[in-house]
């Protein structure tokens, strides 16, 4: 077995600052746990603020310090997202139980060959984790706990914390400090008082005495790390329904600010979908609003933005683009405090094959994406496709439906053979009543010359829009051909013949 451990030393701070975007490297940030500071970022550290300080002390040192509350649920969500991203490399991913030093464990012996060796796999793992925005330490070892200890023990990381061999691991672990073990941290002061600093010191002592003083757990952990006793781990399974929320750092007034938070959620969503080898078919982004004043009942508490994809996708860039276009169109009733994203529309089919050369299906794919983007910004009703209907009335002959290129293939009716042109390309949305001169129709003040006709169309008595018309092809004064008709039965104007312009032969 070969385990890779991924230790995330700054997980709680990073999960808190993730919605800040680029600002997170510029602002001094500190996380509070109770009244004491649990974590600080680099900028705060340079100002002299250290973990363990009281809030008042830190503020005295750096008045511009921004505080956040440590949130166990937020950390768990971020850790789960990292684990989901890791599931792309191996089915055996486990979370290490130690909450103070969060760690994700991957068993990769079976995947090494596929991913081209350990260095290449580690490189890919780093690339896959980049969108989630966490920094981590990697280590690999033949035992799960051994790898986790090496990853947490950051000194020696540069030397290459990648131990392939059990005896080398044991040798390396002898120098590891005792506080790396969970139970060792509890008894840190006592152990230090006894002069026990490294795991090697512990190992040289009689086991029964150690067990009596510090409990069985310390010895069990040590044995597991060294590979003396088995260390069974339970593989993590992604939950069937994705739900994640993020509290925005500041209330967001514009959709651009919302996007920062939404991008983090999207990265987590895609990691979750990829872990199941599925693609996202649609998701809903809910925004929780801040009431304008106390007792404000007009402002809705939530705005929901459902987004359904024409074709399921796993591409973060594409999802971001769609969301950006949709958010740009959405009027927001009030500033937003928090975002929640949930998704239960997964497509568990095999992903379509990539193609080297452009082909019919890749062109179809590209067109689908284009239509989806246009519809996301303009609205689905603005990007349309004609459907031919068998109706004699010209205004009912062409129905319009929102464009969906893949649906068109299914709907495909019998192709109409090219024939002599009998219908004009341009139909007027409303037939235009024409003036008349001696019962002859006038267009723009000039008489129309009737060239062909009449073609009688009488239909629609069954659905309320009865049409009884005699159509003529006529020539306008500039030579262009137009389509006019004479209303037959219900004469609207008793005076005239009832001539209307209905189309132009474009």
């Amino acid at each position, binding site marked *: 077995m070969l385990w890779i451990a991924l230790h995330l030393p700054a997980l709680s701070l990073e999960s808190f600052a993730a919605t800040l975007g680029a600002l997170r490297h510029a602002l001094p940030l500190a996380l509070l746990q109770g009244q004491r500071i649990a974590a600080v970022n680099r900028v705060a550290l340079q100002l002299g603020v250290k973990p363990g300080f009281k809030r008042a002390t830190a503020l005295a040192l750096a008045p511009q310090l921004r505080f956040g509350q440590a949130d166990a649920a937020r950390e768990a969500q971020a850790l789960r997202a990292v684990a989901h991203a890791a599931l792309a490399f191996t089915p055996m991913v486990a979370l290490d139980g130690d909450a103070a030093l969060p760690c994700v464990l991957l068993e990769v012996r079976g995947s090494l060959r596929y991913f081209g060796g350990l260095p290449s796999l580690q490189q890919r793992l780093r690339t896959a984790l980049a969108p989630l925005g966490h920094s981590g330490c990697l280590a690999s070892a033949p035992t799960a706990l051994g790898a986790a200890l090496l990853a947490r023990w950051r000194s020696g990381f540069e030397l290459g914390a990648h131990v392939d061999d059990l005896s080398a691991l044991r040798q390396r672990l002898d120098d590891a400090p005792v506080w790396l073990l969970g139970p060792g941290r509890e008894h840190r002061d006592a152990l230090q008082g006894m002069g026990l600093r490294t795991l090697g010191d512990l190992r040289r002592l009689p086991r029964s005495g150690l067990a009596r003083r510090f409990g069985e757990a310390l010895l069990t952990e040590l044995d597991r790390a060294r590979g003396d006793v088995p260390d069974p781990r339970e593989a993590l399974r992604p939950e069937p329904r994705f739900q994640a929320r993020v509290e925005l750092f500041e209330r967001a007034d514009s959709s651009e600010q919302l996007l920062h938070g939404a991008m983090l959620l999207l990265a987590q969503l895609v990691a979750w979908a990829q872990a199941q080898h599925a693609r996202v078919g649609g998701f809903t982004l809910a925004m929780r609003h801040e009431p304008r004043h106390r007792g404000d009942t007009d402002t809705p508490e939530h705005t929901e933005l459902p987004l359904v994809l024409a074709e399921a996708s796993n591409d973060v860039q594409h999802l971001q683009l769609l969301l950006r276009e949709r958010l740009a169109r959405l009027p927001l009733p009030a500033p937003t405090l928090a975002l929640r994203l949930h998704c239960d529309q997964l497509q568990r089919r095999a992903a379509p094959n990539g193609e080297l050369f452009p082909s019919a299906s890749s062109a179809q794919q590209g067109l689908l994406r284009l239509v989806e983007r246009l519809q996301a910004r303009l609205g689905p009703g603005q990007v*349309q496709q004609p459907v031919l209907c068998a109706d004699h009335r010209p205004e009912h002959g062409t129905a319009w439906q929102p464009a969906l290129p893949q649906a068109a293939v299914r709907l495909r009716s019998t192709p109409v053979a090219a024939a002599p042109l009998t219908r*004009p390309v*341009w139909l007027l949305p409303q037939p235009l009543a024409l003036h008349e001169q001696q019962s002859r129709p006038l267009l723009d003040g000039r008489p129309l010359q009737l060239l062909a006709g009449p073609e009688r169309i009488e239909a629609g008595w069954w659905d309320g829009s009865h049409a009884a018309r005699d159509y003529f092809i006529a020539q306008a004064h500039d*030579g262009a051909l137009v389509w006019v008709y004479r209303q037959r039965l219900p004469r609207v104007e008793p005076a005239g013949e009832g001539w209307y312009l209905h189309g132009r032969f474009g």
Partner: protein
Amino acid sequence: MDPLPAAALLAAPETLHPALWRAHQLGRAREAAVRSGFDELDAQLPGGGWPLQALTELLLPHPGVGEMRLLAPALAGIAAAEPPAPRSVMLFDPPAPLCGWALAQLGVDAQRLIVVHGRDGAHGARHLLASADLLWALEQALKSGQVGAVLAWLPLRLRADALRRLQLAAQSHDGPVFLLRDIEARARPSPAPLRLALHSAGIDELALRVLKRRGPALTRSLRLALPPVLAPVQRARAEAARLAAEATERARLVPAAGSAARLSLAERCGLQ
């Protein structure tokens, strides 16, 4: 390999690079063009057809002079082409609702059509200014390179940089792009390498003037026979009716001219 003698190069500099041509020659498009379906027109277009990866501007006095019948053969070819696949035709902000049956009769597969309206310009209301959304959508469609042909009805007033952006975007579009605008736009500068002015020249005929092309200026206007609306019999009848009307008109005018002549003669007699 022998380098070409410098004298030969000087004698025929247009062989140096596809972008070079002499003022009396037609430019050669670097890419193959789409045949327009009208031999007379193809002979006058650089590359022998509608240019790919470049804007083509068609200026017309009003929609309905025969522009769709002019473009239909090329569009039908794109929507039905086998290699590599039939491709879509996108129409941006058409001036009126389209009749799918008419396009089907012209040979354009209606399933391959996608019509995009600007957000406020649904159903063909003509606007003075192009909406930013529409220009955005047009640019996206051109940049994606997935559309077979693009037709866009753009308003008269259009900023020059918008057209230039479209021309740049068109370079990644593997198909013809037709911008249809009002004839008034003729006086305005445009980066489109091909500009044509269309007007109707009678029943099922279109007169076409080349305003700008890569090549020598064409002074005469072309007359193209469009896919006919009228059957030959109807057309002959209409011609006969027109001739008859002209004859009666002339007959109405000629006696008047005769009487005027008589009057002047009488005047002259009176003078004598």
